[in-house]
């Protein structure tokens, strides 16, 4: 996994609530047996017409907006447990998703792929949407070590919560599986003790 420490980037705004995993990556794209190429189908039904041409009114097709931070409305990632949603977001090039609320499984999946979900207050979120509305190149700065997110145009800043262990994993680029493998003896002892 890649390390994550600090990032300043312009953002892609998606002011829609309850964006579910079927929108992030529709089921028909889940037939692959590897993790590659999902970025091309991120938000496919919102992004492309039936004939595959881009829909000009969708934000990913708007040349004004770019960057490695996706900013979305409340309850992002609800629905299915498909990790393909995290692979699609990562594959497209997003390193951070900012929202006022995330669905549980999505949050876990994102973290397991080095994508940082940043939970902000509803006010902060509204402020970001307002800022990028007037200046599409406005940036956010995410500082993982200090756990702060800053709207660089307005100077507004908030701290965000992240589990200390998960933070450590991201900062050092470590996976959960490394930890679990190191506990194998303990797992075997647990198994013996319960019979």
């Amino acid at each position, binding site marked *: 996994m890649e390390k994550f420490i600090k990032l300043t980037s312009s953002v892609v705004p998606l002011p829609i609530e309850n964006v579910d995993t079927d929108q992030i990556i529709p089921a028909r794209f889940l037939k692959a047996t590897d993790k590659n190429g999902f970025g091309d189908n991120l938000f496919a039904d919102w992004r492309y017409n039936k004939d595959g041409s881009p829909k000009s009114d969708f934000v990913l097709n708007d040349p004004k907006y770019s960057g490695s931070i996706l900013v979305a409305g409340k309850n992002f990632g609800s629905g299915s447990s*498909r990790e393909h949603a995290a692979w699609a977001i990562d594959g497209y090039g997003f390193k951070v998703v900012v929202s006022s609320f995330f669905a549980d499984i999505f949050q876990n999946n994102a973290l397991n792929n080095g994508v940082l979900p940043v939970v902000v207050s509803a006010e902060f979120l509204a402020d970001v949407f307002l800022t990028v509305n007037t200046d599409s190149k406005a940036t956010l700065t995410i500082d993982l070590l200090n756990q702060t997110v800053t709207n660089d145009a307005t100077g507004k800043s908030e701290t965000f919560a992240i589990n200390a262990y998960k933070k450590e994993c991201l900062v050092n680029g470590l996976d959960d599986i490394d930890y679990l493998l190191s506990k194998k003896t*303990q*797992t075997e002892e647990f198994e013996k003790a319960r019979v």
Partner: protein
Amino acid sequence: MSKTLFDKIWDAHVVSSVENGPTQLYIDRHFCHEVTSPQAFNGLRARGLKVFRPEQTTLTADHNTPTINQDQPVNDPISRNQLDTFASNAVEFNLPLYFPLGHIKNGVVHIIGPENGFTHPGATIVCGDSHTSTHGAFGAIAFGIGTSEVEMVLATQCVLQSRPKTMRITFNGKLNEDITAKDLALYMISKLTTGGATGYFVEYAGEAIRSMSMEERMTVCNLSIEMGARGGLIAPDQTTFDYVKGREFAPKGAEWDKKLAYWQTLNTDEGAKFDKELVFEAADIQPMITYGTNPGMGMGIAESIPTLDQVDEAGRISYQKSLEYMGFAPGEKLEGKAIDYVFLGSCTNGRIEDFRVFANYVKGKKKADNVTAWLVPGSWMVEKQIREEGLYDILTEAGFALRQPGCSACLAMNDDKVPAGKYAVSTSNRNFEGRQGSGARTILAGPLVAAAAAVTGKITDPRN
């Protein structure tokens, strides 16, 4: 100290705890399907790892499978490749409990698990599928995981989880006649919204829950995830034990007696504290339908869609987008509206009882000509039972056909896709945009409302 049911099971599965971090939780049963597992097996291969406890993983092909001609090779080459990969992974990693298409134990993962006795009270159960919460009906901690976690379970039989908060939802009193478990669940989700239980594990309690069959309890627990909950569970009781006893992979003999004695201790102690408690009156629940594009957008079948001023300001853009997609107007009534498709099936309502309810209603009636009906049993065992109980004859007489088991139109990965713009009354669990096919418009409902719609061709209150 008094403990909740959740606490008792969780505490019995803690292997270790990370300082300031998550818990290493031991997993008793892992269910696995073809769509969310290939990358996990790739991961094992890349790291040179074996499966740690092969007999604790049950594998079934269900998500990306056709519901006709299952005895023939799958047409779509990409789907076929995914199924072949699944089969070869089962062989390469020596997994004995692999049930391919056509096998009598094959079917939707959350249906074959309980039905074959893999699902036990007090167990920890995971699967790369969010509706794993279904198994909570047996008094188990069951939840969906991502593919990275599937890899962890295969490699170590453990996952790392932060302890969720606990919530108890009590349904006082009895359900009215003709109100199904699905109605109860859709009612609850409409009250809580799709994010209302995020971060929580829910215990369902109260008379209405206690008097439910295992099938009905599974429907309720299945839908826990639709209000954001990590999972839902119900304390095991005689109904549970009777269901589990004698099933192929259930404990037997002395082992059964020992397990049963333990299972009987699995309930929430008097005075145990939940982080949140909610109480509903079962008698308030009417037949339910959804009108929008998430399961929280539900209402009584005779009610009207909320008007814009009844919606939170921040949610109005999404609300309007949702109604636009559905082709409905704020304030509109849906009863009497024509529909095009009916889907009976999925891990929510693809069990034998759902087919009984459906068949009982359509008996002696005829399917409406304007309706395409997909009746998809949740498993081959359900299919067999449908025939044995004579439901098959009732259904065919009423003009319905039976398809072969699988997830089918629940997620429309196969050819069972509802065309753009068409309305489907569906007993599945998600009405997200495009869930049942690009542009498809899903109205979620229970098996009884689905049966009434299939017969009249309209949204119909089954009590009339």
